[in-house]
């Protein structure tokens, strides 16, 4: 629920309650006043009548529809005022003694006119109150909308903000202190996270670059060690293992640098790349590896897809997917490459259970026992997909692991 509606809701509730309570109360109060008024008039009439009735022989001229006088057996009880059964009259009954005879004097006054008046007043009041309520709601809404505008602006900007964008977050100034404070706080927060992101990125980049020279020294010394004589088999095995490890380090280093470079947007040049052509070229390159593992390669090229992208990155994307399909395959397994309806699908046989799709595209989430797999490949794939708004998904359909990249919709 919007904050705006929340406040208005309380206003509305209060107003409705007020309306529901006020109208009946008003009605009763008004009725009381009217009746008191009528009663006063009845009593006044009575006080006017009594002395004249005392002296008059023929009382008829003084009497009319509203005033009746009749003999009563009962001795003088007290005056009484009451409303008739149907509520249309107000009656004053009084007993008086004229010439030793007890009379009952009854004066009535119609309430119908007053009733109509009360009804009109109440209707008018309900109408007025309703209008007031509606107006209040409307004003409140538009006012709130106006007042909260800077807040929604901030929210919109914040939502669009990415920590890896180059320019800092800029929020518009607000005259309202609270919003100004909020904006300042948010800007500071964004700036802090941007700075720490940049620092982290620079660290990864620098560390990767700085690592290269010692790696080169290490690799060079290993090669010199290979040249030493005499060289026993034991030594050779040790050197080979070290060389493999240094190879891995070198590859890891390369992957990290590629990742930071993608994140830095250092591949701005794009051109039209044919996915089919690129994939065929790569598959040709990997033919030897495919044959070595005795894999069957099934290809479905239902269309050729051209995307506007950096050719190096597209090559990395395709090569990582294809190499994974080969590397994590079983001997004698199967690979299916399919290009149709704007999407590339690479399926391969492999381990007989699904990979953890949540962690798959994260850094160093190794999902296979293959010690040589460096765990950066799929993150690089994901980053490239993000860059070009490709959509990548993974599914396991026994016995195939399938990677599906939607490149064009």
């Amino acid at each position, binding site marked *: 629920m919007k904050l705006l509606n929340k406040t208005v809701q309380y206003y509305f509730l209060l107003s409705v309650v007020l309306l529901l309570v006020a109208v009946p109360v008003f009605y009763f109060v008004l009725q009381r006043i009217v009746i008191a008024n009528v009663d006063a008039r009845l009593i006044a009439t009575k006080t006017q009548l009594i002395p004249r009735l005392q002296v008059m022989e023929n009382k008829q001229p003084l009497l009319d529809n509203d005033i009746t006088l009749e003999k009563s057996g009962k001795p003088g009880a007290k005056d009484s005022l009451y409303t008739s059964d149907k509520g249309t009259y107000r009656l004053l009954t009084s007993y008086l003694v004229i010439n030793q005879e007890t009379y009952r004097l009854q004066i009535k006054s119609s309430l119908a006119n007053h009733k109509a008046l009360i009804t009109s007043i109440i209707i008018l009041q309900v109408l007025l109150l309703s209008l007031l309520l509606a107006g209040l709601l409307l004003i409140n809404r538009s006012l709130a909308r106006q007042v909260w505008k800077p807040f929604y602006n901030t929210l919109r900007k914040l939502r669009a903000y990415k920590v890896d964008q180059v320019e800092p977050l800029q929020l518009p100034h607000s005259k309202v202190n609270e919003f100004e404070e909020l904006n300042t706080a948010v800007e500071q927060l964004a700036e802090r996270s941007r700075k720490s992101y940049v620092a982290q990125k620079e660290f990864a980049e620098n560390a990767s670059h700085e690592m290269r020279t010692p790696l080169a020294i290490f690799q060079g010394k290993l090669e010199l060690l290979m040249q030493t004589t005499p060289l026993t088999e034991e030594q*050779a095995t040790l050197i080979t293992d070290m060389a493999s490890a240094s190879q891995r380090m070198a590859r890891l280093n390369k992957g990290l640098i590629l990742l930071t470079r993608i994140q830095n947007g250092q591949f701005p040049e794009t051109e039209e790349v044919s996915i089919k052509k690129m994939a065929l070229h790569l598959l040709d*390159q990997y033919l030897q590896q495919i044959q070595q593992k005795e894999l069957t390669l099934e290809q479905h090229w239902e269309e050729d897809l051209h995307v506007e992208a950096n050719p190096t990155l597209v090559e990395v994307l395709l090569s990582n997917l294809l190499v994974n399909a080969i590397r994590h395959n079983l001997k004698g397994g199967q690979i299916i490459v399919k290009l149709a309806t704007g999407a590339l699908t690479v399926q391969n046989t492999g381990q007989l259970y699904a990979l953890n799709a949540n962690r798959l595209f994260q850094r160093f989430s190794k999902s296979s026992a293959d010690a040589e797999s460096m765990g950066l490949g799929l993150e690089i794939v994901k980053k490239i997909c993000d860059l070009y708004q490709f959509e990548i998904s993974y599914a396991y359909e026994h016995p195939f692991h399938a990677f599906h990249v939607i490149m064009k919709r």
Partner: protein
Amino acid sequence: MKILIIEDEQALSKSIATYLAAENYTCEVAADCKTALDRIETFEYDCILLDISLPDGNGLQVLQALKRDNKTEGVIIISARDSIDDRIKGLQLGADDYLTKPFHLSELSARIAAVIRRRRFSGSNTLEVGGLLLDTQARTVKVKDQTVDLTRKEYDLLLYLVTNRNRVISKHAIAEHLSGDGEGLFDNYDFIYAHMKNLKKKLLQAGWEDQIKAVYGMGYKMDVP
């Protein structure tokens, strides 16, 4: 052959010098720009290995100095930076090749040999080693005047062995060399054995005395007296 190594990391320049010494290259080392500029002004080299990030400036100024003085030395940049921009800048300034650290010394040696071959205006494109006659222009191999029909990969492999003769080349270096620009995506070295087997078979059939031997699963070595 004289080679100037412009590199501030002593451990690395020493490794390079030691490795190349086996090939009868004379190596000199300059650890900073100033020394390097002095050297290239005074001496002539067949090839210069140039690290770009030097303590007293950018190595590219050495390239600019060479260009200014109309020197024809072949230059191979060895750098820790490998962005396309860096590469293009280096190559535009007249470098012949660009090698990113870390690299295999055998790969460096092969690149140097290629640069020197290309730079040698006069003379033949042939290389005669241990009874093999390689024509680096036509990419053909002759054994006893008889052309051996090799595939592209087999020829590359042979040339790599020849330029690194008398030294052990690791299988990692061979794999990387054969699969193109640092593509060592697979950790499967079986394909090297397959290429090597075919290469040896073809050379033996042509009457060549096999001088390539495997060194304990570590790599290969071509022994040429």
